[in-house]
Protein backbone atom coordinates (compact mmCIF):
# COMPACT_ATOMS: atom_id res chain seq x y z
CA UNK A 1 0.00 0.00 0.00
CA UNK A 2 1.32 3.46 -0.86
CA UNK A 3 0.53 6.63 1.01
CA UNK A 4 -2.07 7.81 -1.47
CA UNK A 5 -5.52 8.36 -0.04
CA UNK A 6 -7.23 8.82 -3.35
CA UNK A 7 -6.59 8.48 -7.03
CA UNK A 8 -8.89 10.09 -9.55
CA UNK A 9 -8.41 9.04 -13.14
CA UNK A 10 -10.60 10.62 -15.76
CA UNK A 11 -9.83 9.41 -19.24
CA UNK A 12 -12.67 11.46 -20.61
CA UNK A 13 -15.65 13.36 -19.31
CA UNK A 14 -18.21 14.50 -21.87
CA UNK A 15 -21.40 16.45 -21.40
CA UNK A 16 -23.97 15.42 -23.99
CA UNK A 17 -25.42 18.01 -26.36
CA UNK A 18 -28.33 19.98 -24.95
CA UNK A 19 -30.68 21.84 -27.30
CA UNK A 20 -28.58 24.63 -28.81
CA UNK A 21 -25.28 23.46 -27.30
CA UNK A 22 -23.10 20.82 -28.98
CA UNK A 23 -21.54 17.92 -27.11
CA UNK A 24 -18.63 19.04 -24.94
CA UNK A 25 -15.51 17.19 -23.87
CA UNK A 26 -14.69 18.84 -20.55
CA UNK A 27 -11.90 16.74 -19.05
CA UNK A 28 -9.44 14.45 -20.71
CA UNK A 29 -6.47 12.45 -19.44
CA UNK A 30 -6.61 13.75 -15.89
CA UNK A 31 -4.77 11.54 -13.45
CA UNK A 32 -4.63 12.87 -9.93
CA UNK A 33 -2.93 11.07 -7.08
CA UNK A 34 -3.73 12.58 -3.73
CA UNK A 35 -1.38 11.81 -0.91
CA UNK A 36 -2.74 10.95 2.51
CA UNK A 37 -3.12 14.08 4.66
CA UNK A 38 -2.27 16.53 1.88
CA UNK A 39 -4.21 19.69 1.12
CA UNK A 40 -4.60 19.81 -2.64
CA UNK A 41 -5.93 23.01 -4.15
CA UNK A 42 -7.24 22.97 -7.71
CA UNK A 43 -7.42 26.20 -9.68
CA UNK A 44 -8.11 27.02 -13.29
CA UNK A 45 -10.17 29.33 -15.48
CA UNK A 46 -13.91 29.54 -14.97
CA UNK A 47 -15.83 26.79 -16.72
CA UNK A 48 -12.79 24.58 -17.24
CA UNK A 49 -14.20 21.64 -15.27
CA UNK A 50 -13.05 22.01 -11.67
CA UNK A 51 -16.48 21.36 -10.17
CA UNK A 52 -16.99 18.52 -12.60
CA UNK A 53 -13.77 16.89 -11.40
CA UNK A 54 -14.78 17.29 -7.77
CA UNK A 55 -18.24 15.84 -8.42
CA UNK A 56 -16.64 12.83 -10.06
CA UNK A 57 -14.33 12.35 -7.06
CA UNK A 58 -17.35 12.61 -4.74
CA UNK A 59 -19.31 10.01 -6.69
CA UNK A 60 -22.07 12.50 -7.50
CA UNK A 61 -21.32 12.22 -11.22
CA UNK A 62 -20.90 8.73 -12.62
CA UNK A 63 -21.13 9.49 -16.34
CA UNK A 64 -17.43 9.50 -17.17
CA UNK A 65 -14.77 7.15 -18.45
CA UNK A 66 -12.16 6.38 -15.83
CA UNK A 67 -12.13 5.49 -12.17
CA UNK A 68 -11.85 6.77 -8.64
CA UNK A 69 -9.93 4.63 -6.17
CA UNK A 70 -9.71 5.03 -2.42
CA UNK A 71 -6.93 3.51 -0.34
CA UNK A 72 -9.42 2.75 2.37
CA UNK A 73 -12.53 0.67 1.91
CA UNK A 74 -15.65 2.69 2.60
CA UNK A 75 -13.80 5.98 3.05
CA UNK A 76 -15.86 8.68 4.77
CA UNK A 77 -16.42 11.75 2.59
CA UNK A 78 -17.48 15.27 3.36
CA UNK A 79 -18.31 17.85 0.73
CA UNK A 80 -18.53 21.56 1.34
CA UNK A 81 -20.41 23.07 -1.55
CA UNK A 82 -20.31 26.54 -3.03
CA UNK A 83 -23.60 27.31 -1.28
CA UNK A 84 -24.06 26.13 2.32
CA UNK A 85 -26.83 23.62 1.44
CA UNK A 86 -28.20 23.49 4.96
CA UNK A 87 -31.74 22.22 5.50
CA UNK A 88 -33.69 25.43 6.10
CA UNK A 89 -36.36 23.62 8.15
CA UNK A 90 -33.89 22.23 10.67
CA UNK A 91 -31.94 24.25 13.22
CA UNK A 92 -28.18 24.63 12.93
CA UNK A 93 -27.59 21.99 15.61
CA UNK A 94 -30.07 19.57 13.98
CA UNK A 95 -28.42 20.09 10.59
CA UNK A 96 -25.11 19.01 12.04
CA UNK A 97 -26.52 16.21 14.18
CA UNK A 98 -28.19 14.70 11.10
CA UNK A 99 -24.93 13.84 9.35
CA UNK A 100 -23.94 11.64 12.30
CA UNK A 101 -25.60 8.27 12.79
CA UNK A 102 -28.78 8.36 14.87
CA UNK A 103 -27.32 5.93 17.39
CA UNK A 104 -23.93 7.65 17.57
CA UNK A 105 -23.36 7.56 21.35
CA UNK A 106 -21.71 10.95 21.89
CA UNK A 107 -23.44 12.62 18.93
CA UNK A 108 -24.90 15.57 20.81
CA UNK A 109 -21.62 16.21 22.55
CA UNK A 110 -19.71 16.21 19.27
CA UNK A 111 -22.19 18.65 17.76
CA UNK A 112 -21.85 20.99 20.74
CA UNK A 113 -18.05 20.76 20.58
CA UNK A 114 -17.79 21.54 16.87
CA UNK A 115 -20.32 24.40 17.17
CA UNK A 116 -18.19 25.86 19.92
CA UNK A 117 -15.13 25.46 17.73
CA UNK A 118 -16.63 27.44 14.84
CA UNK A 119 -18.15 30.01 17.18
CA UNK A 120 -21.79 29.15 16.59
CA UNK A 121 -22.83 27.96 20.06
CA UNK A 122 -25.21 30.88 20.42
CA UNK A 123 -26.86 30.13 17.09
CA UNK A 124 -27.34 26.40 17.69
CA UNK A 125 -31.13 26.61 17.88
CA UNK A 126 -31.53 29.17 15.08
CA UNK A 127 -32.85 28.30 11.64
CA UNK A 128 -30.20 28.74 8.91
CA UNK A 129 -32.07 31.34 6.86
CA UNK A 130 -32.04 33.71 9.81
CA UNK A 131 -28.22 33.67 9.88
CA UNK A 132 -25.78 35.69 7.81
CA UNK A 133 -24.08 33.94 4.89
CA UNK A 134 -20.83 33.84 6.84
CA UNK A 135 -22.51 32.06 9.75
CA UNK A 136 -24.22 29.60 7.39
CA UNK A 137 -20.81 28.82 5.90
CA UNK A 138 -19.46 28.23 9.40
CA UNK A 139 -22.29 25.79 10.02
CA UNK A 140 -21.52 24.01 6.73
CA UNK A 141 -17.86 23.82 7.74
CA UNK A 142 -18.83 22.39 11.12
CA UNK A 143 -21.03 19.82 9.38
CA UNK A 144 -18.18 18.83 7.07
CA UNK A 145 -15.80 18.31 9.99
CA UNK A 146 -18.09 16.71 12.54
CA UNK A 147 -18.12 13.40 10.67
CA UNK A 148 -14.32 13.30 10.91
CA UNK A 149 -14.00 12.57 7.20
CA UNK A 150 -11.16 10.68 5.60
CA UNK A 151 -11.48 12.91 2.57
CA UNK A 152 -12.86 16.43 2.49
CA UNK A 153 -13.95 17.95 -0.81
CA UNK A 154 -14.53 21.69 -1.02
CA UNK A 155 -15.87 23.60 -4.03
CA UNK A 156 -15.18 27.32 -3.65
CA UNK A 157 -16.62 27.24 -0.15
CA UNK A 158 -15.73 30.84 0.74
CA UNK A 159 -16.78 32.81 -2.35
CA UNK A 160 -19.01 35.88 -2.05
CA UNK A 161 -17.97 36.59 1.51
CA UNK A 162 -16.43 39.88 2.59
CA UNK A 163 -12.66 39.66 3.15
CA UNK A 164 -12.65 39.55 6.97
CA UNK A 165 -15.30 36.78 7.08
CA UNK A 166 -13.55 34.75 4.40
CA UNK A 167 -10.22 35.21 6.17
CA UNK A 168 -11.52 34.10 9.53
CA UNK A 169 -13.09 31.04 7.89
CA UNK A 170 -9.79 30.20 6.20
CA UNK A 171 -7.95 30.53 9.49
CA UNK A 172 -10.54 28.28 11.08
CA UNK A 173 -10.11 25.76 8.30
CA UNK A 174 -6.34 25.73 8.76
CA UNK A 175 -6.78 25.16 12.49
CA UNK A 176 -9.32 22.38 12.03
CA UNK A 177 -7.18 20.74 9.40
CA UNK A 178 -4.09 20.96 11.61
CA UNK A 179 -5.85 19.48 14.62
CA UNK A 180 -7.11 16.50 12.70
CA UNK A 181 -5.08 15.72 9.58
CA UNK A 182 -7.48 15.12 6.71
CA UNK A 183 -6.99 14.71 3.00
CA UNK A 184 -8.50 17.75 1.31
CA UNK A 185 -9.37 18.54 -2.30
CA UNK A 186 -10.16 22.23 -2.53
CA UNK A 187 -11.31 24.17 -5.60
CA UNK A 188 -10.86 27.94 -5.81
CA UNK A 189 -10.36 30.89 -8.14
CA UNK A 190 -8.53 32.92 -5.58
CA UNK A 191 -4.75 32.52 -5.89
CA UNK A 192 -3.97 34.06 -2.54
CA UNK A 193 -6.39 31.65 -0.92
CA UNK A 194 -4.78 28.83 -2.89
CA UNK A 195 -1.28 29.63 -1.65
CA UNK A 196 -2.50 30.16 1.90
CA UNK A 197 -4.16 26.75 2.12
CA UNK A 198 -2.42 24.38 -0.25
CA UNK A 199 0.36 21.93 0.38
CA UNK A 200 0.08 21.15 -3.29
CA UNK A 201 -1.31 23.34 -6.02
CA UNK A 202 -2.81 21.98 -9.21
CA UNK A 203 -3.77 24.09 -12.18
CA UNK A 204 -6.23 22.83 -14.78
CA UNK A 205 -6.22 24.31 -18.25
CA UNK A 206 -6.74 23.73 -21.92
CA UNK A 207 -9.75 22.46 -23.75
CA UNK A 208 -10.58 19.74 -22.85
CA UNK A 209 -8.93 20.48 -19.53
CA UNK A 210 -5.96 18.59 -18.16
CA UNK A 211 -3.45 19.24 -15.41
CA UNK A 212 -1.07 21.95 -16.65
CA UNK A 213 0.78 22.68 -13.42
CA UNK A 214 1.45 20.72 -10.27
CA UNK A 215 3.49 22.47 -7.56
CA UNK A 216 4.22 21.80 -3.92
CA UNK A 217 3.72 24.79 -1.63
CA UNK A 218 6.29 24.87 1.12
CA UNK A 219 4.99 27.14 3.83
CA UNK A 220 4.76 26.40 7.51
CA UNK A 221 1.50 26.72 9.40
CA UNK A 222 2.59 30.05 10.89
CA UNK A 223 3.71 31.44 7.56
CA UNK A 224 0.30 30.66 6.11
CA UNK A 225 -1.32 32.96 8.62
CA UNK A 226 1.08 35.75 7.69
CA UNK A 227 -0.45 37.72 4.83
CA UNK A 228 2.86 39.23 3.68
CA UNK A 229 4.52 35.85 3.34
CA UNK A 230 1.57 34.40 1.47
CA UNK A 231 1.48 37.31 -0.98
CA UNK A 232 5.23 37.10 -1.54
CA UNK A 233 4.99 33.39 -2.21
CA UNK A 234 2.13 33.98 -4.59
CA UNK A 235 4.19 36.61 -6.47
CA UNK A 236 7.05 34.17 -6.89
CA UNK A 237 4.77 31.39 -8.01
CA UNK A 238 2.70 33.21 -10.58
CA UNK A 239 5.36 35.90 -11.27
CA UNK A 240 3.68 38.06 -13.85
CA UNK A 241 -0.06 37.34 -13.52
Amino acid sequence: MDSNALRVTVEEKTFPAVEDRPEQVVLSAVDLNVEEGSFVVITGPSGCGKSTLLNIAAGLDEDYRGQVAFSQANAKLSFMFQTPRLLPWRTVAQNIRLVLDDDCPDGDKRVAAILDRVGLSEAATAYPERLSLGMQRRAALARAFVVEPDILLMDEPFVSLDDPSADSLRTLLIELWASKPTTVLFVTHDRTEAVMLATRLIRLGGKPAAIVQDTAIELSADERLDREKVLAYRMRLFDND
Partner: protein
Amino acid sequence: MALENNTIRTGRVGRGITGKVLVGRLGWTVISFLTLLVLWAVVAAIMQSRLFPGPLEVGDKLLSEAASGELFYHVGLTLGRVAAAFIAAMAIGCAIGIALGRAKGADLFFDTWLIFFLNLPALVTIILCYVWFGLTETAAILAVAINKIPNVAVTVREGARSLSRDLNEMSEIYRFGFWKTLRHVTLPQLAPFFAAAARGGLALVWKIVLVVELLGRPNGVGEQLHIGFQLFDVSMILAYAIAFIVVVQVIELCVLQPLEARANRWRR
Protein backbone atom coordinates in the same frame (compact mmCIF):
# COMPACT_ATOMS: atom_id res chain seq x y z
CA MET B 1 -26.37 67.78 3.20
CA ALA B 2 -29.69 68.55 4.85
CA LEU B 3 -32.12 65.74 5.42
CA GLU B 4 -35.42 66.63 3.83
CA ASN B 5 -38.40 65.90 5.97
CA ASN B 6 -40.25 64.02 3.25
CA THR B 7 -37.51 61.47 2.82
CA ILE B 8 -37.57 60.25 6.40
CA ARG B 9 -39.00 56.81 7.05
CA THR B 10 -39.73 55.80 10.62
CA GLY B 11 -39.62 52.19 11.77
CA ARG B 12 -42.85 50.60 12.90
CA VAL B 13 -41.81 49.40 16.31
CA GLY B 14 -43.13 51.55 19.13
CA ARG B 15 -45.75 53.29 17.03
CA GLY B 16 -48.47 50.82 17.94
CA ILE B 17 -49.14 50.00 14.30
CA THR B 18 -49.20 46.21 14.51
CA GLY B 19 -51.81 46.24 17.29
CA LYS B 20 -54.00 48.68 15.44
CA VAL B 21 -53.93 46.61 12.26
CA LEU B 22 -55.14 43.54 14.16
CA VAL B 23 -58.04 45.30 15.87
CA GLY B 24 -58.91 46.95 12.60
CA ARG B 25 -59.14 43.59 10.88
CA LEU B 26 -61.38 42.01 13.50
CA GLY B 27 -63.53 45.14 13.51
CA TRP B 28 -64.00 44.96 9.76
CA THR B 29 -65.00 41.30 9.95
CA VAL B 30 -67.67 42.06 12.53
CA ILE B 31 -68.98 45.07 10.63
CA SER B 32 -69.12 43.18 7.35
CA PHE B 33 -70.89 40.24 9.00
CA LEU B 34 -73.50 42.45 10.68
CA THR B 35 -74.12 44.32 7.42
CA LEU B 36 -74.79 41.02 5.67
CA LEU B 37 -77.29 40.01 8.38
CA VAL B 38 -79.11 43.34 8.24
CA LEU B 39 -79.24 43.24 4.45
CA TRP B 40 -80.67 39.73 4.60
CA ALA B 41 -83.29 40.76 7.21
CA VAL B 42 -84.35 43.77 5.12
CA VAL B 43 -84.72 41.78 1.91
CA ALA B 44 -86.68 39.08 3.76
CA ALA B 45 -88.96 41.70 5.27
CA ILE B 46 -89.67 43.18 1.84
CA MET B 47 -90.24 39.78 0.17
CA GLN B 48 -92.57 38.52 2.87
CA SER B 49 -92.33 35.00 1.40
CA ARG B 50 -92.26 31.60 3.04
CA LEU B 51 -89.54 30.74 0.56
CA PHE B 52 -87.23 33.54 1.74
CA PRO B 53 -87.06 33.35 5.53
CA GLY B 54 -85.20 36.03 7.50
CA PRO B 55 -82.30 35.47 9.87
CA LEU B 56 -84.58 35.15 12.90
CA GLU B 57 -86.62 32.28 11.46
CA VAL B 58 -83.47 30.48 10.33
CA GLY B 59 -81.93 31.03 13.76
CA ASP B 60 -85.06 29.56 15.36
CA LYS B 61 -84.83 26.52 13.15
CA LEU B 62 -81.14 26.14 13.95
CA LEU B 63 -81.87 26.21 17.69
CA SER B 64 -84.74 23.71 17.50
CA GLU B 65 -82.69 21.30 15.37
CA ALA B 66 -79.82 21.65 17.83
CA ALA B 67 -82.15 21.11 20.81
CA SER B 68 -83.56 17.90 19.34
CA GLY B 69 -80.03 16.63 18.66
CA GLU B 70 -80.78 16.18 14.94
CA LEU B 71 -78.30 18.87 13.94
CA PHE B 72 -75.36 17.29 15.76
CA TYR B 73 -76.26 13.82 14.56
CA HIS B 74 -76.31 14.78 10.88
CA VAL B 75 -73.41 17.23 10.96
CA GLY B 76 -71.37 14.66 12.88
CA LEU B 77 -72.05 11.92 10.33
CA THR B 78 -71.19 14.20 7.44
CA LEU B 79 -67.99 15.30 9.14
CA GLY B 80 -67.02 11.66 9.63
CA ARG B 81 -67.48 11.01 5.92
CA VAL B 82 -65.53 14.15 5.04
CA ALA B 83 -62.70 13.03 7.30
CA ALA B 84 -62.59 9.49 5.91
CA ALA B 85 -62.70 10.57 2.28
CA PHE B 86 -60.23 13.39 2.90
CA ILE B 87 -57.66 11.19 4.61
CA ALA B 88 -57.95 8.45 1.98
CA ALA B 89 -57.66 10.95 -0.86
CA MET B 90 -54.65 12.72 0.68
CA ALA B 91 -52.77 9.50 1.39
CA ILE B 92 -53.36 7.94 -2.03
CA GLY B 93 -53.05 11.21 -3.94
CA CYS B 94 -49.75 12.12 -2.26
CA ALA B 95 -48.27 8.69 -2.95
CA ILE B 96 -49.26 8.90 -6.62
CA GLY B 97 -48.05 12.50 -6.89
CA ILE B 98 -44.62 11.75 -5.43
CA ALA B 99 -44.21 8.66 -7.63
CA LEU B 100 -45.14 10.56 -10.80
CA GLY B 101 -42.97 13.54 -9.89
CA ARG B 102 -39.93 11.32 -9.39
CA ALA B 103 -40.28 8.80 -12.24
CA LYS B 104 -40.38 10.47 -15.60
CA GLY B 105 -41.50 7.40 -17.52
CA ALA B 106 -44.42 6.74 -15.21
CA ASP B 107 -45.40 10.39 -15.46
CA LEU B 108 -45.51 10.30 -19.26
CA PHE B 109 -47.53 7.10 -19.20
CA PHE B 110 -50.06 8.03 -16.52
CA ASP B 111 -50.54 11.65 -17.55
CA THR B 112 -53.43 10.74 -19.83
CA TRP B 113 -55.11 8.75 -17.07
CA LEU B 114 -54.77 11.68 -14.73
CA ILE B 115 -56.33 14.05 -17.24
CA PHE B 116 -59.19 11.61 -17.72
CA PHE B 117 -59.94 11.42 -13.99
CA LEU B 118 -59.44 15.17 -13.51
CA ASN B 119 -62.14 15.88 -16.06
CA LEU B 120 -64.54 13.14 -15.04
CA PRO B 121 -67.59 14.94 -13.63
CA ALA B 122 -68.11 14.29 -9.90
CA LEU B 123 -71.68 13.19 -10.52
CA VAL B 124 -70.55 10.43 -12.88
CA THR B 125 -68.14 8.97 -10.33
CA ILE B 126 -70.82 9.07 -7.66
CA ILE B 127 -73.49 7.38 -9.80
CA LEU B 128 -71.08 4.70 -11.02
CA CYS B 129 -69.86 3.95 -7.50
CA TYR B 130 -73.43 3.52 -6.28
CA VAL B 131 -74.33 1.39 -9.29
CA TRP B 132 -71.30 -0.86 -9.00
CA PHE B 133 -70.90 -1.11 -5.23
CA GLY B 134 -74.46 -0.53 -4.02
CA LEU B 135 -75.81 2.25 -1.82
CA THR B 136 -73.25 1.64 0.89
CA GLU B 137 -71.05 3.76 3.12
CA THR B 138 -67.92 2.44 1.40
CA ALA B 139 -69.23 3.36 -2.04
CA ALA B 140 -70.07 6.85 -0.80
CA ILE B 141 -66.63 7.50 0.65
CA LEU B 142 -64.91 5.90 -2.34
CA ALA B 143 -66.82 8.17 -4.71
CA VAL B 144 -65.71 11.27 -2.86
CA ALA B 145 -62.10 10.11 -2.59
CA ILE B 146 -61.88 9.30 -6.31
CA ASN B 147 -63.02 12.82 -7.11
CA LYS B 148 -60.33 14.30 -4.97
CA ILE B 149 -57.32 12.03 -5.65
CA PRO B 150 -56.36 13.48 -9.08
CA ASN B 151 -56.27 17.04 -7.71
CA VAL B 152 -54.04 16.03 -4.83
CA ALA B 153 -51.79 14.01 -7.15
CA VAL B 154 -51.34 16.90 -9.59
CA THR B 155 -50.49 19.39 -6.83
CA VAL B 156 -48.04 17.08 -5.09
CA ARG B 157 -46.48 16.03 -8.42
CA GLU B 158 -45.57 19.67 -8.99
CA GLY B 159 -43.74 19.65 -5.68
CA ALA B 160 -41.98 16.37 -6.33
CA ARG B 161 -40.75 17.68 -9.68
CA SER B 162 -39.17 20.72 -8.09
CA LEU B 163 -37.28 18.88 -5.35
CA SER B 164 -33.87 20.42 -4.81
CA ARG B 165 -31.02 18.56 -6.48
CA ASP B 166 -28.56 20.39 -4.27
CA LEU B 167 -30.07 19.01 -1.09
CA ASN B 168 -30.31 15.55 -2.62
CA GLU B 169 -26.59 15.58 -3.37
CA MET B 170 -25.95 16.75 0.17
CA SER B 171 -27.92 13.84 1.64
CA GLU B 172 -26.16 11.45 -0.71
CA ILE B 173 -22.70 12.63 0.36
CA TYR B 174 -23.53 12.35 4.05
CA ARG B 175 -25.20 8.95 3.52
CA PHE B 176 -28.61 9.79 4.90
CA GLY B 177 -30.22 6.66 3.49
CA PHE B 178 -33.84 6.34 2.38
CA TRP B 179 -35.80 7.10 5.56
CA LYS B 180 -33.64 9.95 6.80
CA THR B 181 -33.77 11.57 3.37
CA LEU B 182 -37.54 11.15 3.18
CA ARG B 183 -38.16 12.55 6.63
CA HIS B 184 -35.67 15.41 6.76
CA VAL B 185 -35.10 16.36 3.13
CA THR B 186 -38.00 15.30 0.88
CA LEU B 187 -41.15 15.67 2.98
CA PRO B 188 -40.31 19.15 4.34
CA GLN B 189 -39.87 20.35 0.76
CA LEU B 190 -43.27 18.93 -0.12
CA ALA B 191 -45.03 20.38 2.94
CA PRO B 192 -46.28 23.53 1.19
CA PHE B 193 -47.71 21.38 -1.58
CA PHE B 194 -49.41 19.08 0.95
CA ALA B 195 -50.89 22.17 2.58
CA ALA B 196 -52.16 23.52 -0.74
CA ALA B 197 -53.64 20.13 -1.61
CA ALA B 198 -55.26 19.83 1.83
CA ARG B 199 -56.76 23.30 1.65
CA GLY B 200 -58.26 22.90 -1.80
CA GLY B 201 -59.11 19.33 -0.84
CA LEU B 202 -61.26 20.11 2.14
CA ALA B 203 -63.26 22.71 0.24
CA LEU B 204 -63.94 20.25 -2.58
CA VAL B 205 -64.57 17.19 -0.41
CA TRP B 206 -67.23 18.70 1.79
CA LYS B 207 -69.19 19.96 -1.19
CA ILE B 208 -69.11 16.58 -2.93
CA VAL B 209 -69.99 14.72 0.26
CA LEU B 210 -73.30 16.58 0.37
CA VAL B 211 -74.15 15.42 -3.16
CA VAL B 212 -73.20 11.86 -2.30
CA GLU B 213 -75.46 11.96 0.74
CA LEU B 214 -78.28 13.47 -1.20
CA LEU B 215 -78.15 10.73 -3.80
CA GLY B 216 -77.73 7.66 -1.65
CA ARG B 217 -77.45 8.00 2.11
CA PRO B 218 -80.25 7.85 4.72
CA ASN B 219 -78.64 10.50 6.90
CA GLY B 220 -76.16 13.39 6.97
CA VAL B 221 -76.41 17.05 6.06
CA GLY B 222 -76.87 16.27 2.36
CA GLU B 223 -79.88 14.09 3.11
CA GLN B 224 -81.36 16.79 5.38
CA LEU B 225 -80.99 19.30 2.56
CA HIS B 226 -82.80 16.84 0.32
CA ILE B 227 -85.71 16.67 2.77
CA GLY B 228 -85.71 20.45 3.03
CA PHE B 229 -85.91 20.59 -0.77
CA GLN B 230 -88.84 18.15 -0.96
CA LEU B 231 -90.78 20.07 1.72
CA PHE B 232 -89.72 23.43 0.30
CA ASP B 233 -88.46 24.16 3.82
CA VAL B 234 -85.95 26.88 3.05
CA SER B 235 -85.34 27.61 6.76
CA MET B 236 -84.09 24.10 7.22
CA ILE B 237 -81.82 24.28 4.16
CA LEU B 238 -80.27 27.53 5.33
CA ALA B 239 -79.98 26.35 8.95
CA TYR B 240 -77.95 23.31 7.90
CA ALA B 241 -75.90 25.29 5.41
CA ILE B 242 -74.97 27.85 8.07
CA ALA B 243 -74.15 25.18 10.63
CA PHE B 244 -71.85 23.57 8.12
CA ILE B 245 -70.10 26.79 7.14
CA VAL B 246 -69.42 27.49 10.83
CA VAL B 247 -67.97 24.01 11.36
CA VAL B 248 -65.71 24.26 8.31
CA GLN B 249 -64.47 27.70 9.38
CA VAL B 250 -63.72 26.42 12.87
CA ILE B 251 -61.71 23.52 11.41
CA GLU B 252 -59.83 25.95 9.18
CA LEU B 253 -58.99 28.31 12.04
CA CYS B 254 -58.32 25.79 14.79
CA VAL B 255 -56.70 22.93 12.88
CA LEU B 256 -55.37 23.87 9.45
CA GLN B 257 -53.95 27.31 10.19
CA PRO B 258 -52.03 26.31 13.35
CA LEU B 259 -50.66 23.28 11.50
CA GLU B 260 -49.51 25.48 8.66
CA ALA B 261 -47.96 28.01 11.01
CA ARG B 262 -46.04 25.19 12.69
CA ALA B 263 -44.79 23.82 9.39
CA ASN B 264 -43.62 27.29 8.35
CA ARG B 265 -41.91 28.38 11.51
CA TRP B 266 -38.43 28.12 10.00
CA ARG B 267 -39.21 30.70 7.29
CA ARG B 268 -37.79 34.19 7.59
